[in-house]
């Protein structure tokens, strides 16, 4: 890899020194590469003048790999070795994949990230994506006839840390130097805003093949400030194809069930029909199936509108939520930029127009606008800042970052929509007396329970000096850089013991389970509150048990056998109640244990006071009493 030359910031190199950087839109359905030449952003075409590279990779018998149109041609013939929409698999585990039963692929449930079994072996989504990136890189090198210093690669704004890491790794695997991961709607806004010298607040509605993003940006004298972003990482143009596909099957009433090849073929025909319907009142769908049966149906616009209505409204939910996050109403929006091939669907144009009460902006090709913006940003980052081209992007983090606390609850450390780069520190404490290590589990998402968020990394802070529960002060710092990638540091404040982790290729651990976390967090807000209350009670119960156990260990001699047995049986009852998950029962059992420990606590207090008075100052008596409060009573009532 060529070393980057170091230039003074803001200094524009001489024209003949232009360092070429490229912008890549690595899409679910199609990918593109663009660069800035003679001050203008251009998409690069292949020898046949085509800009798009279908994001399809076919693994051949002779060990060759086909990418793009050549691979797309055979998708119905060789579906198991021809991978389309690989972006949907990036950084995901098998349970995350929506409609996996409709996928003609052999998915392998690898820990961390799902993989695909092909005739050339098991391929990770990172490897498959790298094949597409390699083709784009070659095209750029042939077009520019020069070394390329780096690339800006776009990702859906709504991609989480694992999906971003996977994308960055794919680029590295393809031999690209990644200058920046850029959010797709932001890239579109750059292309649009610089092209139109726009000012004011804009919405970018980006419906790609497999993901939906909505971003609200404020453009002020060359600063593109993302105010809020939202979306659904498992909703896109593909879903409209699938609706048509299901409708076709219903209409056709086939004599034998469709084979894998039939499914691939019909999905392709469905997509063609969808595209045809954008400019025609009806679309014929014909196909000869494996059984020899010939399928011949026609779908009209009204039918298409009817079967896809719910998908359209599904995009408007995140739009409303994101507007609210930005503290704005639809009428505050100056213009709505449409991005992604799926926004050509008239039904979507209409729905978006109605929602914002204005005609959406379509003057840049929705398929190309993201790549064009990425190239502009790449050119800037490579140091080719033209005089007067003084602009800046301020992007945000799409999903909240947090830590697991006792009972599987999430403590949010960085809220979503914080402007990047961002750092936040929060203090945590120990749960058990003498605890010398603490597990730091980093998660991303909006829900309150760890199990409902994406797990990003786990690491352990060791060497905490043994202290009473709650006495250690552990400061955990999150830093998110301009790419939206995270690093975490934990430090015990009194001793300075430190642990650090770059949240690198973890792709989430095997317990990852989530799609559309934000959406789900709204749907489940009520469940969460109840579950949270239960979890908290369970944690309190465990704390009480720990505290009593540790008191018993020290001072059992203060109890007679009967008293001791009573407390022991209270503990067992509390444990049983805690497992039952009935919050009321837990509370009752806690009260019982608490009551039966009163006498014990009193005796311990006396003992401590007597000990302390034997030649000690009043201060240390008070200290001793406080210690007792902490070990006997406090854990139950301690701050959450």
């Amino acid at each position, binding site marked *: 890899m060529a070393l980057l030359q*170091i230039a003074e910031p803001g200094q524009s190199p001489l024209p003949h020194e232009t360092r070429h950087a490229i912008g890549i839109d690595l899409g679910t359905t199609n990918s593109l590469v663009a660069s800035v030449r003679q001050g203008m952003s251009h998409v690069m075409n292949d020898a046949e003048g085509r800009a798009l590279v279908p994001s399809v990779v076919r693994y051949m018998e002779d060990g060759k790999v086909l990418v793009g149109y050549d691979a797309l041609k055979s998708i119905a013939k060789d579906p198991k070795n021809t991978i389309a929409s690989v972006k949907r698999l990036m950084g995901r585990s098998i349970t995350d994949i929506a409609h996996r039963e409709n996928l003609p692929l052999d998915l392998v449930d690898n820990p961390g990230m799902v993989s695909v079994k092909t005739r050339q072996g098991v391929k990770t989504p990172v490897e498959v994506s790298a094949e597409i990136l390699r083709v784009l890189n070659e095209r750029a090198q042939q077009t520019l006839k020069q070394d390329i210093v780096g690339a800006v690669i776009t990702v859906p704004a709504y991609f989480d840390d694992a999906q971003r890491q996977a994308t960055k790794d794919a680029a590295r695997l393809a031999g690209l130097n990644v200058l920046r991961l850029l959010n797709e709607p932001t890239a579109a806004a750059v292309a649009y805003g610089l092209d139109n010298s726009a000012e004011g607040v804009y919405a970018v509605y980006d419906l790609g093949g497999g993901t939906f993003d909505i971003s609200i940006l404020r453009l002020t004298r060359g600063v593109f400030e993302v105010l809020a972003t939202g979306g659904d990482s498992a909703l896109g143009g593909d879903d409209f194809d699938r609706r048509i596909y299901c409708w076709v099957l219903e209409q056709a009433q086939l004599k034998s069930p469709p084979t894998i090849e039939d499914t691939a073929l019909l999905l392709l025909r469905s997509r063609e029909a969808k595209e045809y319907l954008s400019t025609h009142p009806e679309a014929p769908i014909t196909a000869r199936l494996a059984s020899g049966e010939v399928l011949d149906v026609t779908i009209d616009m009204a039918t298409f509108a009817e079967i896809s209505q719910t998908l359209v409204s599904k995009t408007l939910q995140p739009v409303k939520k994101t507007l609210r996050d930005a503290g704005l109403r639809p009428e505050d929006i100056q213009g709505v930029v449409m991005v992604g091939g799926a926004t050509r669907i008239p039904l979507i144009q209409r729905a978006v127009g109605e929602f914002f009460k204005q005609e959406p902006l379509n003057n840049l090709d929705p398929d190309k606008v993201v790549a064009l913006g990425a190239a502009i940003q790449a050119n800037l980052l490579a*140091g080719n800042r033209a005089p007067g081209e003084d602009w800046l992007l*301020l992007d945000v983090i799409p999903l909240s970052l947090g830590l697991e606390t006792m009972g599987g609850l999430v403590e949010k450390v960085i809220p979503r929509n914080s*402007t990047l780069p961002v750092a936040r520190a929060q203090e945590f404490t120990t749960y058990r007396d003498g605890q010398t290590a603490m597990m730091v589990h980093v998660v991303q998402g909006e829900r309150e329970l760890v199990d409902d968020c994406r797990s990003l990394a786990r690491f352990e802070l060791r060497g905490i000096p043994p202290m009473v529960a709650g006495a250690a002060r552990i400061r955990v710092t999150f830093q998110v850089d301009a790419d939206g990638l995270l690093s975490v540091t934990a430090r015990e404040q009194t001793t300075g013991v430190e642990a650090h982790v770059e949240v690198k290729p973890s792709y989430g651990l095997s317990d990852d389970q989530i799609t559309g976390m934000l959406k789900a967090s709204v749907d489940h807000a009520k469940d969460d509150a109840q579950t949270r209350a239960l979890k908290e009670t369970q944690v309190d119960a465990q704390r009480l048990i720990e505290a009593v156990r540790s008191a018993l260990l020290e001072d059992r001699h203060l109890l007679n056998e009967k008293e001791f047995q009573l407390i022991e049986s209270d503990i067992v009852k509390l444990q049983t109640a805690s497992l039952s998950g009935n919050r009321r029962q837990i509370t009752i059992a806690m009260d019982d244990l608490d009551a039966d420990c009163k006498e014990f606590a009193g005796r311990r207090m006396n003992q401590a006071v007597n000990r302390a008075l034997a030649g000690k100052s009043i201060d240390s008596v008070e200290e001793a009493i406080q210690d007792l409060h902490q070990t006997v009573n406090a854990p139950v009532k301690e701050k959450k």
Partner: protein
Amino acid sequence: MSDSKATPGIAITADLLGADFFTLLGLPKRFELDIASLDERFRQLQREVHPDRFAAADDAARRASMMLATQINAAYQTLRSPLKRATYLLEQAGIDIGAESNTAMSPDFLMSQMMWREQVADARGEKHLAELERLQSEIAHDIRDAYSDLATLLDKENRTHDAVEGVRRLMFLEKLREEIEDAVFALEDL
């Protein structure tokens, strides 16, 4: 653009990193501030120090740029919210808001809070959007008044003790406003 020429390459020093948020953003250290100039200063500074300006620089410069950009973001977020700004001002004056431990509020205030909450709960239960919107504008009004009182206490009379009380009341009010907004949003969505 000409304004970036006017502030030639701000020196990234430890001083600036350690500066208080007002100094960092070049604004007078007081509660009342001009949001437009805050926004403008923020954008101007980020234009100078953002990591994108240092994409091709060496490691040390890139790290410094990230730290400073992070700090400017934190300063901007704090100063842009009046509640955070007031809390920060008091903290800077060495006063701990003690929002969690010290809960002694005037009984009148607590009583009015309870009544507010009941009204909101009722309106939410009855899915009474107009009533929620009425409560929303009422609380917005109360909050505006409370901030203007706070400005007097902090900027003119320097009555920090009373200002703490004001900040803690506003924490209640802002929380309530958020709850009402949630309820309105949920209803509008139906």
